[in-house]
Structures are given as structure tokens and as C-alpha cells.
């Protein structure tokens, strides 16, 4: 079991090198909630935890799983200008702007979306075999009809990809237009549709027949919802569908004519078994699988889940939707596409976009020196380029996880204790106490925990459980990367000049003023710093390390400019106030390869 898990994990972690990924704020929130959950076994509410988030709390929670799933590239992230936080697609609110068919790009009004079961009502159909688009073909196109002058051209649908034809399921049309209406007639007499209608009418009748009893029933009903109840303490009440029983039984007593049993049209009682036996025998003598449907095809037709290709039906193409994105916290719209009066789904312009790349310093790996394969204990220098997209000067400070001095991976715990630098986001150090969770839980209860978490000196709460700690520790042990290198940053803090669009195409004329130690070069609105990485892990380990970036800026603009998306709208920031924002990012530079002594 574990092996499989590891395999999966490795699969997930096949991020091609090199990369720079960012940790979203919501990961911190969920980590805190997870920690509280593990210590108290109660899932904490979101809001109180969210309000705790600031640049200090974030610094306590470095990214732990290095898998694709949780880390995002900067192009996937949003930045809410009013709460100054990163957001990822997981922690935003989405609502719908418009619905459209991906095939004909026809904008479907919201009103007809539901009644049409979210499918296109025009002539867009999906191939039941390979799920591509079907096209209408007239019979005469394919077969030169000989003298049969019926003048009735037969139309059918065909798939250009897998050559499937709707004739295979005996489906053809008289007209080439309005296919849906022709199909609908056939669909409405399908056995499951008829049965469903019958059933619903049956229950509807039962419930309506005792409408006069409604007063009593509503009382009973409300009792079931917990308004007045003394006789409902028995938990067995929950095993009823409330009200239904009373109403239906009442109906029976009131009116014996209405059969309280739904009558399946008189069928031989053994038909089910007989059919089943027949199908079993069919399958027993099956010769090949050409006629059988695949699981995907079955699931695409959940109403009867046919076993044979002949029973497949044509479905209309499901609609797609355009979403607009809002900040989860303050409901500020982050991304909105331009919707004109004539909503054209093909329009791809945005009216609002607050992507993170326009707000936070963008980090690039500029160069790896020497750009060879990575070997154990041979340090390489990584040039990290920080680009400031803002129109203000920002100052950036960087910190990394404490380096480990010892080669042995198991000693992480020890080392982190020894070093105990300012920020020690180590979970393993508290491992010994993990098993005492029930005893600790009162101490670690969320209310008491809140305050200390704000102080830098307190280590973050650790997930208290054997299984998950291994899971969370995994990235450091199995996925190796992090623990497999020592990282040294010389320039821990520096300033990046503002982005100035007018200088965009100017040549670099900057004089080589005396650079700060550890800074490679300064260009326009970017600064490249030197990071020394010494891989220490085994062969095949991934070399990746997290860095904590905190940047601060002062809002110089007196009037906020709402229009241009490039210049951020820090509406809540009063003039001249310094604001700190921090986030974790993970940088991966490669794998440790075999040493060769050529």
C-alpha cells in the first residue's frame, strides 16, 4: 500500500526542472486548520483562522508537500488588492458570466440552461463512442442512390474521428435541421422516463390526497425538524424520511381506493431473474469485445448504462460556462471578462484582472552557474531574478529554511533545534509530543493557540498524528528535494526600483554602482541575486528549496487609479503607510545525477 502511495507521490512530483512555484495563502489557512483539527479533532471555522493571516503567520508555514497539486505557478495565482493576499483557484468564489456551447459558440441564456439540462439545444451532438462532435450527413452524399426517386433524403449523424454513424443505432432523420426536437420525442418515451413520471405522479397523488390533513401533518412535520418534540428523542426518527411516512400511511387510511402501493404493470414476477439469466448466458458465450461498451461510455449514459454499443444513444454537447472570480474574503472581483450586450463567448478580453504577476515580485531563475548536472556536495550558484511589476519601489527580504549541517537525513530534527534561527518552521521537532494528542488537545485548543501563533518565537503547531506526520514529513524525507541541499543567500534584503513603462524599451544605461554583496546585477525594475545551493542528498534526489519572500512598499499615489489594471488599487491603504506582504515560493533546479569522474 505504502509503495503504491509513494509511486503516486513521485508521479505527482514530476514537475520538470527548473521551476519556481508559489504557495497560496489558502494553503496556510488549511494548514492551520488541519493542525487545529489534529490537536482538537474539531474542524475550526474558516473566518477566525483567516483573520489571523498576515505576513508573520505565513512565515511559520513553509510549503511542505512539494506536489503539483498544492503549489501554483505565478500565472495561476490571483492577488486581491484590497486584502493584499494571494489567492489561488481553490480559494476564490466563482460565479457565472455566461453559458455557451463549446461547439457552436452560441450564447445560451441562463433561463434555458436548466430546462435543457445544461446541453446545447442546437445541432451539436456528441459521439457516444469517442465523445467528439458529430456532423450531419445526408444519405445521398455517401451512397449514390439509384433510381429510387423517393426524394426523401435521409440524414444521419457521423463522427469524423471514429467513423461512427448514427445508422448503427438505427437513428436517422428526415430533416437536417431541428434534430434535437426529433430526438426529444424519442427520448421522452424511454422506459426510465416513463417510469419516473409514473412514480412521481404516484407519490404526488399520495401526498395530495391528504391535503386536508395538512394541519396535523405540518405539526408533525415541524416536530420532526425539532420545533416541538418530546416523543422524538428516539434516534430511529432519523432513519425515516420525515413526513413522508406519516403522509403516505395517512393516505392509505383515508382513502383505500388510492393504492398506497405503486403498481408495476402486471409483469411476471420472475422476469427480472429470467432476463438476468439470459444476459449472463449471452455474456458467457461472448466471443470478442467489439460489441461491448467501455466504462466511460457507460458512465456517459447513466440512465441505463448499456452493455452493448447498439444501445448507446446520442447526447447533446454539454454547455460550458464563463466564470468570474471574486475574492473569497472581501468579495472583490478579481477576474472578469468583458461581457457585452451581445454576449459573445468568443470575446476573450478582460475588464478586470488582478493576476498575481502584476502585483507580487516575479521570481525567475536567470542562470545556474555552472549549468552542468548537479552533483553531490558540488555547490552551484543560482541567479534568481526578482522583477517588480509595481509602479512603486519595493523592498524585498528573503529567508530560507535553516540549512542542515549533517548529511544524514534523519538529523533534520536535531539540526533545527541546534540552529533555531529566527524562523524555524520545523514540524519534526515536536514529534515526540505527537502521540500525546489527547492530553495536549486542551492546551492546543484553537482559542488559546491564536495568540502565540502571532509571535515569531513560537513554533507552529505540528500535525499530531503518526500517519500524517509521515505524510507531511515525506517531502523532506522521501521526496527528498528540500533536505537535499544547503542554501545560502547573501543578499537577504534589497530594493527593487519601480516599474516604469516609459523605460521599457530603453537600453540599459545603468552605471555599475557598487553593488550590495550577493547581488549580481540590477536592471530597470529587476534585481538578480546570487543563491548558493549545495546539493547534499543522494543520487536521484530532487534539488528544490523553499524561500520566504517578504516585500514591502509604501503607497505613494495619492489618488488611486482605478482604470489601469497594471497599477494596483490599494484602496484600503492610506497614503504613506508601509505594507508588508509575504509568501513562500519553491524553487527547483534539478536532480542530483551520478558522479562521473571523467
Amino acid at each position: 500500500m505504502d509503495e503504491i502511495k509513494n509511486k503516486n507521490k513521485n508521479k505527482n512530483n514530476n514537475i520538470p526542472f527548473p521551476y519556481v512555484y508559489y504557495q497560496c495563502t489558502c494553503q496556510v489557512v488549511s494548514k492551520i486548520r488541519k493542525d487545529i483539527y489534529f490537536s482538537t479533532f474539531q474542524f475550526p471555522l474558516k473566518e477566525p483562522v483567516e483573520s489571523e493571516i498576515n505576513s508573520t503567520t505565513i512565515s511559520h508555514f513553509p510549503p511542505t508537500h512539494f506536489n503539483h497539486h498544492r503549489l501554483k505557478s505565478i500565472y495561476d495565482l490571483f492577488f486581491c488588492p484590497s486584502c493584499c493576499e494571494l489567492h489561488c483557484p481553490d480559494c476564490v468564489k466563482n460565479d457565472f458570466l455566461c453559458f455557451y456551447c463549446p461547439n457552436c459558440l452560441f450564447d445560451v441564456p441562463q433561463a434555458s440552461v436548466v430546462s435543457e439540462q445544461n446541453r446545447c439545444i442546437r445541432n451539436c451532438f456528441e459521439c457516444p463512442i469517442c465523445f467528439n462532435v458529430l456532423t450531419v450527413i445526408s444519405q445521398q452524399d455517401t451512397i449514390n442512390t439509384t433510381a429510387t426517386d423517393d426524394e426523401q433524403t435521409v440524414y444521419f449523424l457521423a463522427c469524423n474521428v471514429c467513423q461512427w454513424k448514427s445508422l448503427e443505432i438505427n437513428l436517422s432523420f428526415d430533416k437536417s435541421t431541428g434534430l434535437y426536437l426529433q430526438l426529444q420525442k424519442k427520448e421522452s418515451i424511454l422506459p426510465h422516463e416513463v417510469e419516473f413520471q409514473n412514480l412521481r405522479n404516484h407519490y404526488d397523488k399520495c401526498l395530495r390526497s391528504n391535503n386536508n390533513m395538512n394541519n396535523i401533518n405540518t405539526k408533525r412535520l415541524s416536530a420532526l425538524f425539532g420545533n416541538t418534540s418530546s416523543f422524538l428523542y428516539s434516534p430511529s426518527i432519523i432513519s425515516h424520511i420525515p413526513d413522508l411516512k406519516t403522509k403516505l400511511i395517512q393516505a392509505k387510511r383515508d382513502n383505500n381506493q388510492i393504492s398506497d402501493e405503486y403498481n408495476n404493470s402486471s409483469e411476471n414476477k420472475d422476469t427480472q431473474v429470467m432476463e438476468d439469466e439470459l444476459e449472463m448466458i449471452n455474456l458467457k458465450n461472448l466471443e470478442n469485445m467489439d460489441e461491448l461498451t467501455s466504462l466511460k461510455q457507460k458512465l456517459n449514459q447513466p440512465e441505463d448504462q448499456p452493455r452493448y454499443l447498439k444501445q448507446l444513444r446520442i447526447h447533446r454537447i454539454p454547455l460550458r460556462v464563463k466564470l468570474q472570480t471574486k475574492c473569497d474574503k472581501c468579495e472583490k472581483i478579481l477576474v472578469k471578462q468583458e461581457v457585452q450586450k451581445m454576449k459573445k463567448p468568443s470575446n476573450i478580453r478582460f475588464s478586470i484582472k488582478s493576476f498575481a504577476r502584476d502585483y507580487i515580485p516575479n521570481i525567475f531563475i536567470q542562470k545556474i552557474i555552472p549549468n552542468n548536472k548537479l552533483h553531490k556536495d558540488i555547490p552551484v550558484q543560482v541567479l534568481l531574478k526578482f522583477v517588480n511589476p509595481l509602479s512603486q519601489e519595493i523592498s524585498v527580504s528573503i529567508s530560507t529554511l535553516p540549512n542542515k549541517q549533517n548529511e544524514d537525513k534523519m538529523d533534520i530534527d536535531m539540526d533545527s533545534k541546534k540552529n533555531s534561527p529566527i524562523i524555524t518552521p520545523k514540524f519534526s521537532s515536536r514529534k515526540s509530543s505527537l502521540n500525546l494528542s489527547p492530553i495536549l488537545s486542551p492546551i492546543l485548543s484553537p482559542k488559546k493557540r491564536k495568540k502565540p501563533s502571532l509571535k515569531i518565537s513560537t513554533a507552529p503547531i505540528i500535525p499530531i498524528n503518526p500517519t500524517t506526520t509521515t505524510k507531511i514529513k515525506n517531502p523532506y524525507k522521501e521526496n527528498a528535494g528540500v533536505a537535499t541541499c544547503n542554501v545560502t543567500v547573501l543578499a537577504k534584503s534589497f530594493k527593487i526600483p519601480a516599474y516604469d513603462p516609459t523605460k521599457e524599451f530603453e537600453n540599459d544605461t545603468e552605471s555599475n554602482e557598487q553593488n550590495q554583496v550577493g547581488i549580481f546585477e540590477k536592471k530597470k525594475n529587476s534585481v538578480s541575486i546570487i543563491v548558493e545551493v549545495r546539493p547534499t542528498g543522494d543520487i536521484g534526489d530532487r534539488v528544490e528549496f523553499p524561500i520566504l519572500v517578504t516585500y514591502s512598499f509604501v503607497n505613494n499615489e495619492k489618488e488611486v487609479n482605478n482604470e489601469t489594471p497594471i497599477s494596483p488599487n490599494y484602496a484600503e491603504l492610506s497614503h504613506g503607510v508601509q505594507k508588508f506582504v509575504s509568501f513562500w515560493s519553491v524553487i527547483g533546479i534539478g536532480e542530483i545525477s551520478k558522479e562521473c569522474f571523467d
Partner: protein
Amino acid sequence: MSDMSVKDLLHQTALNQLSNKRTTAYGIDQKIIIDIGSLYIKFGLSGEASPRQCLPNRIYENIEHCPEGVLVEGDIKPLYQLVLNPFEIPEIYERFKEQVKLIFYRFMMSDYKHKRKVLIAENLLLPLELKNMIAAVLFEYMNVPSIIFAPSQLLAITSVGKKTGLVVDCGYLETTVLPISDYGCLLHSIKTMPCAGQDISNNLKKLIIENASISFDDGKIFPFSKYPNYSDEILTNYIIEDIKASVCFVGLKPDSTEIIYDEKTHHISYRSSASEIGYPIENRRIKILIPGWVRERAAEILFDEERNEASVISLIIDSIKSTPTDIRKSLLQNILLIGGTSMLPGFCYRVSQELKERLKEDHLENLVKEVTIIRSKFPANTATWIGGSILGSLKYEGQEVTLQQWNETHKVPDWSNYSILNEEENQI
């Protein structure tokens, strides 16, 4: 904006009533029905005759890195297991969140503005943690106005219009037998066994590795066991599920002459007249040749009392025996098989045959002729959902957990804390 949407909704209701008979007349009240299985989530709107989709619980590798409309689908993996480690809840939470996101935004197209209530078909013995997790995702992430929990077996029995019956739920993780009388679950008679679809899948995989062979397009055939390393790669959960769903079936009870017991390896194999099938993989270049008896006997573990100490039949018998004598007859007349595993061809036949035999052995001869398996027009795995859809479209109120209640108590009602919803009255 809100005026607009109300207008839209009203317009839509009118449209529904006029043009489309299939949707409910109470357009605004349409609920979202979700039947959360461990392997498949069935969902759709109430009042519709089939779920919109059966969504397998996959591992999605990186949705957010794909352009809209493209999902990188990993293998199928059950959302949770029977043995539930509380520490796994956060992971389940994340996975379930992904699924909910897909369901609401992509398939249902219903955002938080629609304020659709959600009806969830729950297993009566669903762990409270899972229930809380489900509620947490739906309330916090999707802002649903309220959730109704309804017992899945009860929903299933409404899908055939009965009020009394014996519901045999053979799903992916476990098999449960629950008698229902007059819309009441006789919980003391519930019988379960932790052996169902998943065990068939595991068994099938084992049998394929041991007994199947691979044929290449150039005509060469090798036994599968020669490639033990590839078995996990080729036989992913999806492939196994596909094999199970398309070519497996349940044969009759094996004769003693049909069973071959290998003394050395302790492997049991069967003689069978079923044909060998080539299951194509990798663009049809390679075929897995599955022997007929493997197809026929993969599901044998469900009926193998010697190995499991329980079988589907023994569960039914035990359950029947623990019910009052006066309802036994009507229970046996209304046996309803639900759950995806019971869709295996021959399952129904086998159950009815074997049940009759066992009743004879147990001196309940008078009941033998009563055994009837209800014929449902809906596939067995969506029966529960259909029931939910019917109930959701009726004008009746169910016991709801509202968003407000959730925000106050952060708990969902259950056996253990049913009083949450009645707290005020308790104090009086």
C-alpha cells in the same frame, strides 16, 4: 443583479412548465441530489429521470494547469475506505472539494447564487467525520443554503414505488442488507459485510495476474505472470473496473466437480464453459486474454461463505431471521438489489437461486415461493439517486441542516447528537 436573477428564475420556471415536462413544476425548488459513493459520485437535479453524471472519484493530477475544458485525469481511487483513519480526513476533504468544484461549476452549473438546496443520500452508518466533512465542504465552499440527509436504502425503495422491502446494497466497499417496513428502516436487522466491489476488483486483478496471458499483435502470447512488474502499470483501477463492468458475470453456484483445487499452490480454479476474451489495451496493440472462468468466478468471493464467514445470502438470511415473522413474507416478496456490484449479469439470478436453496435448508420452506426480486427500470447503481430525485421534486419538507445552524453548531445531526437540532426544546 439579484432582481435580474429572480426574474430569470421566474421566467425559467414558466418555461419549464410550458415546454419541458420533465423538469419539476416547482422550478425554483429544484434541489441538487448527490449520492456520494466511495467510487462514484452520482449527482443531478431533482425531478430528472437520471443523474446528470456518474463521476468516478479520480485522482486529478493538476486541474489548474490545464486550459479550461481539459482535465488531467489520474486513476480511479475510492474517496474513502471502510477503515477510516481520522487523520485521513483532511486529504479526503481536499479530494472531495475538487469533486464538488467539478460537480457544481462544470456539470451542474449552479453557483452559490442559485441557492439550491442539496439532498444527500447517506449511508445510515456513515461515520460522523465523513458527514461533517461533506457538510463542511458544501457549506463553506459552495455556500449551499441547506442540506438534507436521507438514508440511501429508503431512497432506493421509493425508486420502485414500494414501502416495504429488503434492500440489498452491494456497492464498492461493503454489502449491507436492510429490511424496510412502511418507510421505516429496521435498523436492528441491518447486516453488513466488508466485502463488495473492491474485493472483487482485487480478486480479479489477482486472478488476471495469475491466469491471464498477454497477446501481442504479431501473434505471440505470453503468460501475464511473466511480467509481474507491469501488472500495476497495465492493470490500473480503471482498467480493472472496466473489465469488471463489461465482461465479468456471476455464474451459478459451482458444483464440486467444477472446482479444481491445486494442492501445491493452494489455488482454486474452476472449470467453466465461458469463453476466453481478449481485452484490448494500449490502442488495441496488446490484448489481455482473460480465461472464461476468471470472468465467471471473480465475484465468487461474495458468495463464498467458507472464506469470508459471510456471504450475500447469509446476510439476507440473517437479516430476515431477525425481523418479526409477520413481515418476513412481504420482505422476501420485495427484494431490491442496489449498488453497482449487483449490476453484474447473473448476480440477481444467483441470489434468487441460492436464497431459495438456503431457505429450504433453514426450514423456511413456506417462504421459498415468495422470493421475488423487484424489477426496477433504473440501473441498480442509480436507484438511490432516483429515489432522491423523486423525493426532491415532491412538495414535502425534509429535515434540513441550514447554513445558519451549521455556522452556529458546526455539527450535523446524527445518531449520537441528534439533539443538536432540538437544543432549545431540550432545555425546556
